Structures are given as C-alpha cells and as structure tokens.
C-alpha cells in the first residue's frame, strides 16, 4: 500500500502557500482552507496530478454562525495506483460571502464536479463561474428563482406552486433524419422515474440527455436538526436496495463525530450484512440484465435467487431489505448458531445456482451476442467522470472502498482482505462477469466471518447529543459502488448537515456515454448493466 503520509506530503508541497493546512475530518486526513477562491481550479488540478479524484462536494450554510459564510468543501481521495490505495481524504475548503456566494467552477478541469456544482447552485444558490452547463439539476419546472432549500433561512414547509412543465433545456441535435425520442419519467416497466431524451438516426443513438431528480424528496433538509437516532431512519430510507449500506455509512460518520468505538462483534455483523446486501443485489441485477437481453429463463433464475436471499434477510433481521439491523453504536440483533447455519445453507445454494446460470449464459450465443461490445464505457471516461463500483471495475478501474478505505471488519479482522475484481472489456458482458466474480468473493468473506465470529457485545450506547461542530466522513462500498457520507453536527449536538453522494450519483453521467455505442432497443440492457438507483441519486 502506498504510504498515506507520503501522499499528504506531496499534496502539501504542491499546494504550499495557497491555504492553511489542518488535519481532518478524520484522523490522518488533510483539509486546506484556500486563501483565494480564484486558486481553486489550479489546486484541484494539482490534486488530480497527485493521483487523486473527486469524491464529493459538501456545501454548508454557516451564515448564522460566527463564521457568517457559506462554505464549500471539495473532497478528494487517491484514485491511481495498483493494489490498495492510501486511505486518506483531502478537502479543499472555501469560505464564501453568504449574500453573493460565488467561486470559479472546476468542472472544465474536473468533469466529475459537474453535477455537484449544479446541485449546490440549486440548493444553496452558489454561483460556479465558468461552469459549462449551469442549468438546474435538482429543482424542476416553475421553481422560483432565488429560492434555495438548503439555505438555513429557507422554511422547509414552504410549498411553491407547481407550474405546468415547460420543455426541459437540453442539447438539440440537428440534421437530416435526426429524431428525438422522449422516454419517461413514467416508464413501461416497474422502475424508478427518470426522463431520457434520445437523439437518434435510425436505430442508432447519437446523443442521450437524461433528466433525473424526479424523486427528490428533500431528505437532506428533512434530516437537519434531528438527533442521530431519529436521523438514522431517514438515512436508511434514502434508498431501498442500498438501505444497509446507507444506514451503515450514516452510523459510521456519526460514530466518528461521537468518537465512539463499536464493539468487535458488531463490526463483523455489520460487515456480514453489507456482504449479504451485495449478494442479493448482484444476483437480482444479473437477472434484470438478462431481462434486457430477452433471456427470461435467466431473469427468473436471478429473481428466484434474489427472493431466497431476501427471505434470508428477513429471517436474520426481520426485514427483507435489512432495515433496522444496523443502529448507531452497533447492531440491533445478534446472530444465533441456527441463523448462521441458515446463512451457510443459503450461500451454498446461491453459489450453485449462480454457477449454473453463468455457465448457461456463457454457452448461449444468443445471450452473449447481446452482451458483448454493448454499452461501452471507455476507461478514460470512467476515470474522468469519477465512476465507481462495478461500472468502473468493468472498465478496468481498480478501486473498491472496502479495500481502499477499510472500515468495520475489513479494517480489523484477518482473512477479510477483499480481492477486487476488474475486467477490461468495458461492456455489458464485463459488468455481468464482474458481478458474478464479486458474488463469489462475497461468499468467501461471509464464510470467513461465520467461521471466526468474535464473541462479545453487539452495541455501545450512542450519546443522544453529539459533540458540537464535528465532521464525520465515511466511504462505504454499496452494491453499486462507493457511497460517500459527509456529516456535521450542530451547536446543539444534532445533525446540522448530512450529504450523501451515492454510487449511482457518481455513475449516472456515464450512462449516456455507454448508450452512445448502442442502438435504442439496447438502451434498457445498457441501463440495467449499470443498475443505478434514482432515489439515492435524487434524495
């Protein structure tokens, strides 16, 4: 593993004189308060040159505090290198005038920042000068100008009237034989809402512009001012199929703030549940991808595997989506010997059923023909857009938050070094293969955890009131990739701000790129190969 201290020394040398250096938010992390907002793009370029990539952007409204400002934090993490990456985060922090918050956009240099900056413009009113595409992202039709829901003075109960939808602003492709195909937000299948505007010539997709954030529920506003215990239920419900990952990320971030040590057995049980979430998602997603390829035997096989695992979830945790298992300070329910045996039985069945399904796929040319060379995501685009998870690994990006930001049992138990699966074919087939390989690795991790489950308590008491004005930062490898949780406590020890950058949020901008090598009828297949959530993107 590259030495985190060497990485930070490099960053200090590159950014010398540009700002004040301080430690945090975690032990061993680095935060740089930039003296001048004009220096931001150059500083971001320096971090990228040091092998780092953008993890998240968190804005806060501190107008009513002694700072009397609006802050923006660009959080970077190491992204280049072979094997485990150094476990550090580097934050570039800027203080802005709350009356006229303005700073230069880094999107021209760091494309991954594009949505983050548009979102901060909508929700905080921060102007990113030089953003190449500064139209609204989160707020839709008829939202009043100058009204920014995440500013503290905004009253969350205020409901501006909904105006009839006007045509949404998008790039219009012109030329002979070019047609626009509008799809959504309400789709033909049982899927979440989003709008896709295809510009096509014949069957070929020339350009795709998605419009998301239809399911924006204002959850980050909802969570402000809640106690940790109450806020947890909201965090857990940012998403259905990432419930465990997001609940766990929220807990780990708040436990950092409280400086709480979670008991060893609880850490292993959390990790076990995280792997169970990965397995049930991956097998179900393989089935859904096969639906996109019209291989219905495979779809049924995948759905049935997923169903068996969700029934296992319910036996273990009382909930088919693993809700209510994790809690701030540990876990709510213990593992009995009998339940451990049911996990072993279910894992053996999954392993056998998946091997059989994968063999059937690989030996069926009518299926592989659909999967091969469809939905290409080139490696350089995956890196530039900060793509994460399976979508990134199937394009050759060797990153996995379980290995690169080890936490819970990955950090403390032996035998849980995650072997990261990558593929270089960058197509739908590669995404299927990486999923299958990851399931086998998860089954191995689960076996190791069941064999060496430490004894002891499963929960420590979480203080009802957090220490004031502390920041927690966690990266959790959800089934769809790394989710970054950024949390800050307020004066009263409640949640001042919680920002979730889900894996889907990072990956959505890659879908139009992958769609450009596809024909319109293959779009569902391409889309399902990413299998992104709308809800934890939109929040």
């Amino acid at each position, binding site marked *: 593993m590259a030495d985190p201290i060497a990485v930070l020394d490099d960053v200090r040398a590159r950014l010398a004189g540009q700002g004040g250096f301080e430690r945090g938010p975690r032990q061993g992390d680095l935060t740089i308060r930039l003296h001048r907002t004009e220096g931001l793009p150059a500083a971001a370029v320096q971090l990228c040159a040091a092998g780092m990539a953008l993890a998240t952007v968190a804005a806060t409204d501190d107008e009513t505090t002694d700072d009397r400002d609006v802050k923006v934090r660009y959080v970077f993490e190491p992204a280049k290198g072979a094997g485990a990456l150094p476990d550090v985060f580097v934050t570039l922090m800027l203080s802005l005038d709350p009356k006229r918050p303005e700073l230069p956009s880094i999107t021209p240099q760091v494309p991954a920042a594009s949505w983050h900056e548009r979102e901060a413009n909508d929700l905080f009113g921060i102007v990113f000068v030089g953003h190449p595409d500064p139209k609204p992202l989160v707020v839709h039709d008829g939202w009043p100008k100058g009204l920014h*829901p995440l500013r503290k003075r905004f009253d969350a109960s205020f*409901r501006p009237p909904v105006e009839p939808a006007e045509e949404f602003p998008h790039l219009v492709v012109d030329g002979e034989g070019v047609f626009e195909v509008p799809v959504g937000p309400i789709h*033909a299948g049982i899927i979440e809402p989003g709008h896709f505007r295809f510009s096509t010539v014949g069957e070929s997709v020339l350009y795709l512009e998605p419009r998301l954030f239809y399911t*924006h529920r204002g*959850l980050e506003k*909802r969570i402000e001012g809640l106690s940790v215990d*109450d806020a947890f239920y909201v965090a857990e*419900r940012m998403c259905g199929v990432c419930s465990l990952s997001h609940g766990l990320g929220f807990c780990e971030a708040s436990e950092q703030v409280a400086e709480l040590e979670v008991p060893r057995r609880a850490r292993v049980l959390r990790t076990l549940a995280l792997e169970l979430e990965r397995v049930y998602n991956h097998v179900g997603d393989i089935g859904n991808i096969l639906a996109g390829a019209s291989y219905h035997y495979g779809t049924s096989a995948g759905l049935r595997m997923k169903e068996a695992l969700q*029934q296992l979830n319910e036996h*273990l945790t009382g909930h088919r989506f693993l809700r209510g298992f994790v809690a701030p300070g540990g876990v709510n329910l213990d593992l009995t010997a009998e339940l451990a045996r049911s996990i072993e039985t279910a894992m053996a069945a999954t392993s056998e059923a998946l091997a059989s399904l994968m063999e059937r796929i690989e030996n069926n040319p009518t299926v592989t023909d659909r999967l091969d060379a469809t939905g290409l995501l080139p490696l350089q685009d995956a890196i530039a857009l900060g793509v994460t998870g399976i979508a990134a690994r199937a394009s050759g990006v060797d990153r996995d938050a379980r290995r690169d930001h080890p936490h819970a049992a990955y950090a403390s138990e032996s035998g849980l070094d995650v072997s990261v699966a990558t593929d270089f074919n960058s197509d739908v087939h590669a995404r299927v293969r990486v999923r299958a390989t990851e399931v086998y690795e998860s089954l191995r991790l689960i076996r190791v955890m069941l064999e060496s489950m430490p004894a002891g308590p499963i929960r420590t008491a979480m203080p009802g009131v957090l220490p004031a004005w502390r920041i927690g930062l966690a990266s959790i490898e959800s089934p769809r990739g790394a989710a970054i949780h950024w949390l800050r406590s307020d004066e009263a020890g409640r949640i001042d701000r919680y920002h979730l950058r889900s894996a889907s949020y990072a990956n959505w901008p890659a879908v139009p790129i992958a769609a450009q090598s596809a024909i319109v009828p293959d779009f569902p297949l391409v889309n399902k190969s990413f299998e992104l959530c709308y809800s934890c993107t939109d929040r």
Partner: protein
Amino acid sequence: MLTALLRSLRTGVVTIRYPEEPAQVPERFRGAPRIRTSSAFDALAPASVCPSGAIAGGGGQPRYSIDLARCLCCGRCAEASAGGSIEICRDIELATRSRKSLIIEVERGLDGHAFVLPPPPPGPEVADRIRRTLGRSLHLRHLDSGSCNACDWELTALLNPVYDVRRLGVDFVASPRHADGVLVTGPVTRNLEVAVRRTYEAVPEPRVVIAVGACASSGGIVGRSYASSGGVAEILPVDVFIPGCPPRPEAIIYGILLAVGRVRDGSPA
C-alpha cells in the same frame, strides 16, 4: 435448452399459495404496533420516540393515537413502552379502504387503562362499479411518485416465481391506457406531481388507485415539505391504502385483492 428444462423439473413448483394459505412470517419479522389490552395509559411510549411522527397525544393529554399509515414498523415504540403496553404484531393483512381506520385511537379510561376505541366502519365498497366493469381480474400500472425503490422492488417480486401474482389474474401493464388502475409508490414529490396527475388521467374509467407503502399512504418518513406533497391522497382519490415500509409482497397482494372485493377488510371473502 434440455438442461434448463431438466433443472426446472428438478426444482419443482416454488410458488406460494397465498391467499388460500396464510403467509409465512419469520420470527424476527416486525409488523405494526398494537396496544395490548388492559395496559396502563401512562405506560404507552411518548410520541417523540416515533421517527416518522405516527404517534400523537399522550404526555398529559387524555388521548393517544398511532397512525399505521405513517408507521415504519421499526419497533421503537414497543421498546419504549413500559410493561409491554405496545407490542409488535405479526399480522400483515393491514390494507384498508379507509385512511381513518389505520389510526388506532386510544383514550385514557377512568381507571387509568388505555382504552382502544373501535375502528370506524370500513368505507363504502369501492368497488361495486369497478367490480361490475372489471370483474375479479386487475391489470395495473405501476406509478412511482418518488419512492425509495423498496416498494418498487416488492412489486417486482410479485412477478417472481415465488409470488407469481399472475396466477391470481393480476398483472402489470406497460401503459396507463391499458390499465384498470395504478399502484402508487412514494409520497408524490413536487417534481412528479404533473406526471402523476397525467398518468392517472390516462387510465380509462372506472379506475382504482392503490397507495403502496407508508410514503404513498401518508408521506411516511418523508412527510410534507417543499419537495413532497405528503401522500398520494393529497393528489388523487385513493381506494386502498397498504401500510408498511415497504409492505411485504403478500401484504401488497392482499391490498390488490381488497380493491376488487376479493377479500374483505380483515378476512378473505
């Protein structure tokens, strides 16, 4: 092909027989809360323990209520109740035609006991006209009005070989114009309000609206805010409410059958 067929034959039938046979609920399953008879009124959990604001009253007031439409089934109120005065029940057939009957109303009795008021009578049969036109079969359009996707995935599960809802004459269709009604998941976000209205209007009459899950039934954990209208009933006339976060697949089946009068509130027809 042959191996696939053999494998299928070896596997046999995996489909459950709900509703003819009762749903199998595992031991750790957490359902909705229930007030245990002859509990002390003061032993009931304070309203502040509920993360979704389903509990009102108590704390000096003589009235207390739990709104099952808002309930996340997290079990916190049971943990915070003295002497087991609130218990978590395992019944999943909670769907109802009347929003009011999902609210458990409790009064403080003269002897200090919690006195649970009888639920209001179930609303009028939605379904008379619908039943005459649509019969016992329903073709439904899924309408995501801003859900967290858990309810959506449970609707997908209805099509898997275990629940196989088509065996009951129920199916999901691609267009609202082919539908007898909508299954709505989510609290109706601001950004979806127009699409929700338009989808509903595209369904030919008579049409059924089924609110699936806590968010659709009441706003749930999302509540009412700048981004959420706080439940489908704020936008559309709802025929059946299915509580749960999310409701289990059998609970959704129960709610769908209730919409066409194939089960009655509380018992199979």
